[in-house]
């Protein structure tokens, strides 16, 4: 029998005490979850960029996708990589941090400082593991709303996000229509498809099949289900790309060799790339969080909460919507976005919709796709005019921010156009 260490040999550093901002909610302020459990205490880790104006009218909430986090426009505290959405958010970007106050929270169930299965269960003093209650997209949004309350913001100028972030956008618009002036759901769907649930199940089974998973108690047992989580990430990563993008980037090229080795070594570049994606992922992500957050996506079916009619979710909504999809996205195909658009039309909503032609697959929302920025920039500008937000960034808008935060907000180098894999 292997030695069981009493002290964990590995634990993600940001789980309980994140280096970002964090808001803690005590027993007086529990979070009622869809599964019926009152989660308390809990905490929400978040980042902000830019300055909240005096009317508190310029707040933008960015919702992150499955495995991304609140560090959207600053260096990541664990990996050191630049923020995951610096193409969209930053000075002079469509979500201009000279103009808007941008908030991004780590979602409920994740592992970068918001309460999740890796967090310490106050009842036992040990990590929650699988004792953590199941969370839903609606729970994530409820938690965000509590943070927005704490920040004293009555209504958000914009809520936006791609993929699972887009699910949160739709949930925000349905749950709190009066608090969302405009909404930008990108590459997303109002329900998770059977195919997507199937892919998620493959990933979860890979994690749980790893003997180091230890029925979810790996942190206490001093192990890490890195192989299982790595395989889950590799399989998922394929779904974020497109056949064309893979072909263009890798073709059948061999990795650092002249000829096949007649072995199961990573002969092909695409294999090497996927292995790298899997390995780097496990350094920053908790395996149980992966189970919980994928499950939250699987359970998402907005229409089901409204008697099966998606239009009812948006009835009477005055929110301005701009729905965006990508032609080569086979994970959240355009048909999913059209279903949302048709429901919004049926509800008499204000909706714009663009399907952007690109061969870069689902990941396109994270990449340097000029049409995406033209669409979102145009939509945001028009909505800001309608809300009466000042069109010209005021000089020294970030002057009253602490120095460190100001530097972060200004640090937005352009992403390489050839980059095809990213955090979601």
């Amino acid at each position, binding site marked *: 029998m292997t030695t069981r260490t009493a002290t964990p040999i590995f634990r993600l550093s940001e789980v309980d005490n994140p280096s970002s901002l964090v808001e803690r909610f005590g027993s007086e302020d529990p979070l009622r979850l869809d599964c019926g459990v009152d989660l308390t205490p809990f905490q929400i880790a978040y980042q902000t960029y830019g300055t909240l104006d005096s009317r508190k009218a310029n707040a933008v909430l960015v919702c992150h996708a499955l495995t991304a986090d609140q560090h959207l426009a600053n260096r990541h505290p664990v990996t050191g990589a630049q923020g995951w959405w610096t193409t969209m958010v930053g000075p002079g970007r469509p979500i201009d941090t000279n103009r808007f106050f941008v908030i991004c929270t780590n979602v409920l169930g994740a592992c970068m400082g918001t309460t999740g299965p890796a967090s310490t269960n106050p009842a036992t003093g040990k990590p929650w593991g699988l004792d953590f209650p199941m969370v839903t997209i609606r729970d994530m949004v409820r938690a965000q709303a509590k943070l927005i309350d704490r920040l004293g913001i009555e209504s958000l100028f914009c809520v936006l996000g791609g993929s699972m972030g887009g699910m949160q956008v739709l949930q925000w618009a349905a749950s709190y229509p009066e608090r969302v002036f405009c909404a930008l759901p990108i590459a997303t769907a109002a329900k998770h498809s059977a195919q997507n649930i199937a892919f998620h199940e493959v990933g979860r089974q890979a994690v749980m099949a790893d003997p180091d998973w230890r029925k979810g108690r790996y942190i206490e047992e001093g192990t890490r289900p890195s192989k299982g989580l790595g395989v889950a990430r590799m399989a998922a990563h394929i779904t974020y790309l497109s056949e064309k993008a893979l072909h263009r980037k890798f073709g059948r090229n061999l990795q650092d060799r002249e000829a096949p080795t007649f072995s199961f070594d990573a002969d092909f570049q695409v294999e090497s790339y996927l292995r790298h994606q899997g390995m780097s992922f496990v350094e920053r992500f908790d395996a149980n969080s992966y189970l919980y957050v994928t499950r939250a996506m699987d359970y998402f079916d907005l229409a089901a909460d409204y008697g099966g009619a998606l239009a009812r979710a948006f009835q009477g909504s005055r929110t*301005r919507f*701009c*729905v965006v999809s990508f032609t080569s996205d086979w994970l959240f195909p355009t048909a999913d976005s*059209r279903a949302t*658009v*048709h429901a919004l*039309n*049926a509800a*008499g909503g*204000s*909706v*714009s*919709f*663009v*399907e*952007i*032609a690109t061969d870069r697959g689902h990941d396109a929302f994270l990449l340097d796709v000029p*049409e995406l920025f*033209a*669409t979102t*920039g*145009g*939509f945001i*500008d*028009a*909505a800001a*005019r*309608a809300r009466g937000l000042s069109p010209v960034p005021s000089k020294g808008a970030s002057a009253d921010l602490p120095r460190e935060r100001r530097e972060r907000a200004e640090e937005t180098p352009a992403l390489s156009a050839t980059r095809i894999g990213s955090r979601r």
Partner: protein
Amino acid sequence: MAVLALPEISPTRVDLLTVAEMVEPGSRVLDVGCGDGALLKMLSERRGVDGRGIELSQAGVNECVAKGLHVIQGDADTDLVAYPDDAFDYVILSQTLQATFAPRTVLEHMLRIGRRAIVSFPNFGHWRIRTHLTFRGRMPVTETLAHAWYDTPNIHFCTIRDFVGLVDLVNARVEKAVALDQAGHPVRVNAPWWFWNIFGQQAVFLLRRR
């Protein structure tokens, strides 16, 4: 603000002004094939309408969205079916009918979705087209119909009289009709259909369900 809209309307699209005059101020409008949004913008600024658009091209949609208009990328032939009955006061189809795959179905959907439908289209019965075809023996290429036959998006041309026939067929009533000459001026108002059918370069119809 009224000065904004006029310069954006090219002389060949004076039908847009005629269309705009048919729309009651403050109504709800769906513009099918709204292009860069010139009509929707004019309607919203001058008539205070609550406008929506459908446009096929991504470039057109982007222009519209940047103007603050609510426009979805879509196709008149496939996307009208998703709209509920009576969702709009007016459904407008300007210079697009002839480019649809199923003009009759499109017109029926328009009359279902909107209390009224406004349709403008180029008249293939115009005397210049007739003479072009008669004397040259080739498909006409004119200022308003600028494509050669092999690459034209216009697959269902009709004359004014053809259109009046379709209106009967789909059980609609003509509330108002205007034929415009080459300069965009209305052709004599009380003229009979055959006269319009020869001298109208384009026509604008205001229809409602019977």
